[in-house]
């Protein structure tokens, strides 16, 4: 039989299913963000195997880029959402649940030092209910030794070998201690952890962290909780340009434009905590950040025009008819 596959007429065996046609069109088995339409109607993935094609059917296989449905890889997993959320600081569990749902986030960070993972009716219940991936962090650690120990405790407590590595230099700035950070990252990578380090906006340090085997680098935009945005966008752009692993903007997001800028600079994702829970309307801000991250990501891919000093008319002068 003849079937129209993405606008081209192809010859397929009788009884071919929609799933087989989608594979023939290059749709990967597992990746999310793929939609298949049969004669103009989108068919749910669960029905692909059981939908036979008729002669003359029109099949379209679409990669759904819009709405952030295009996936990205972090560690050994694929993710749809590019917004990672912190869980500390929400005014109530109800507020946290609403905001995280509005954020559309898939990954949330949890501080082992501040959470008892066995406590019932608490933060983790909300995370469970929303089906989110828990990324434990080592907040509050000042030495590599302390951070490694905390990561191992988190591995036991949360049954995950992922860790957001934070080694803090002092409690006024909460800037990372670069020397301790690299030392801890090395030890944890050797121990089989998927290590996501919170780091300074230092391209050389970012490369060191990637070299020791970190699964991503998470540079700060400005101090944690400051809401001061991205203080050195040039460095973030350099880090993103040279990184072979995802770059996740970690700290300093204050509002939506900061998150959009991070994505335009080439980050793969953004982490937001106080920007959400500290807002007067956390749920609304979560929605705004989600939209900004999608917008920034699309703009990055769209290829912006270069900045110029002088005006450039949008209509060329040449060839304009002289009507005078």
């Amino acid at each position: 039989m003849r079937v129209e596959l993405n606008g081209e007429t192809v010859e397929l065996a009788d009884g071919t299913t929609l799933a087989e046609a989608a594979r023939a069109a290059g749709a990967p088995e597992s990746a999310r963000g793929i939609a298949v339409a049969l004669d103009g109607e989108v068919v749910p993935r669960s029905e692909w195997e059981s939908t036979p094609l008729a002669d003359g059917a029109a099949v379209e296989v679409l990669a759904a880029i819009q709405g952030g449905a295009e996936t990205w890889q972090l560690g050994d997993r694929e993710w749809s959402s590019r917004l990672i959320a912190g869980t500390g600081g929400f005014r109530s569990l109800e507020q946290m649940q609403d905001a995280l749902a509005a954020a559309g986030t898939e990954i949330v960070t949890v501080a082992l030092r501040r959470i008892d993972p066995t406590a019932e009716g608490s933060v983790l219940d909300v995370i469970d209910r929303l089906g989110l991936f828990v990324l434990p962090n080592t907040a509050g650690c000042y030495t590599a030794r302390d951070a490694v120990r905390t990561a191992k405790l988190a591995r036991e407590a949360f049954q995950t070998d992922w860790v957001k590595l934070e080694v803090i230099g002092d409690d006024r700035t909460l800037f990372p201690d670069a020397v301790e950070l690299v030392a801890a990252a090395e030890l944890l990578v050797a121990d089989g952890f998927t290590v996501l380090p919170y780091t300074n906006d230092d391209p050389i340090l970012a490369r060191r962290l990637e070299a020791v085997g970190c699964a991503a680098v998470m540079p700060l935009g400005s101090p944690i909780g400051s809401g001061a945005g991205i203080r050195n966008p040039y460095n973030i752009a350099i880090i993103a340009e040279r990184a072979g692993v995802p770059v996740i903007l970690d700290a300093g997001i204050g509002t939506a434009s900061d998150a959009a800028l991070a994505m335009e600079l080439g980050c793969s994702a953004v982490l937001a905590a106080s920007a959400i829970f500290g807002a007067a309307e956390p749920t609304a801000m979560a929605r705004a950040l989600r939209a900004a991250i999608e917008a920034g990501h699309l703009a990055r891919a769209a290829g912006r025009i270069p900045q110029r000093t002088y005006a450039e008319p949008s209509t060329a002068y040449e060839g304009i008819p002289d009507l005078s």
Partner: protein
Amino acid sequence: MSDKSGFDAVFVGGGVIGLASAWRAAQRGARVCVLERAEPPAGATKVAAGMLAPVGELTFGERVLLELTLASGALWADFAAAVEAAGGEATGFRRCGALHVALDRDEAGELRRHHDLQRELGLEAEWLTPTRCRALEPGLVPNFVGGVLAGAEGSVDPRALARALAAALREAGGELRTGTEVFDGLWDGERLVGVRTAPSSVAPSSAAEPRVRSSPMGDKGRGVDVHADAVVLCNGAWSGQTAWLPDEARPPVRPVKGETVELRPRPGEGAPASRIVCSERVYMVPRPDGRLIVGATQEERGFDTVVTAGGVHELLREAYRVLPDVAEMEFAGTIAGLRPGTPDNLPIVGRGAVDGLVLATGHFRNGILLTPLTADTVAATLAGIEPPAVMAQADPLRSSLGRDRPSNDERTRADHAVGAPR
């Protein structure tokens, strides 16, 4: 052994919520009995600083809570006077006012933002220059940016209040049984008609016990049945663990740890401030006898009540930044307690999901402040008359309490095996 006499209401928990509710009910003529496994002051009452601060506690998105705290705050002066007159003991209640100071530009930005919210809602709060702040509180650090005076806020000594309430309860003919633990409910079909008690296994000094026992264990022979027309559950952070209630009747309350530090003045000196003084990270509540309570951390640590070095360090460092004189005070002690937190930060007060059950729990950060309103609500509910209308928002059966949550039995650690592929 069975207590056949029977009560109109039995109260599970002898914190200020239970004591005040029982006292108010007794005043209306009810025969009441309060069961407390330790000795009052117990539970969060023992640890609370006793701020009566609807304005200072206000934050974004909590206007319903503000309605409750304002309503209860307005009752406080008469309530304190009535307790003191009934039992003859002081409560330490004072309408002392509260001063919130911003130590640097960052803190000033946040304080301004909250002050804008306070003014938008028509609350009594005034922005003051540093000079005016220091005229009110000369002990303040010289170098800061400004402050907000909430002049109508007050404070009470929760431990003194608990003792005064216990005395008032006795005067009104109510009974208080201490060292008595509740381990089961008494049922008449679907109706709760009392509780089964045993001598407490908890040492009176211990603030923490992770779980009300679900079986009488070796104490069965000594168990005492207390019959009552209504059972009022007012055991704070432990109410969510009440294993003898069916899942749908158990309130969704979790413990939220708080640590406080108590400082004592040197002989001949008073407290370093006459009002409640707060910064972004710490509050300090002066007592009439010159003591200063510094609080409080807020941690999701289950039933852990360990006082940590880091918690004490944080509190004292912040206290010293605001009121340098604290350095000269005597370090009298530290204590950690458990606030009863709820999913929406509102208390849970009113008739429960089974007949015979009344709830008065989940007061989170505002238990002392909400005591008069809660007590009136419980007493009215028990008497079958209309409770204060504002408290309808604390209805135990409201939807925001997330009744779809999994029961404790369904939960396993496998739920947290989040590293597994989905």
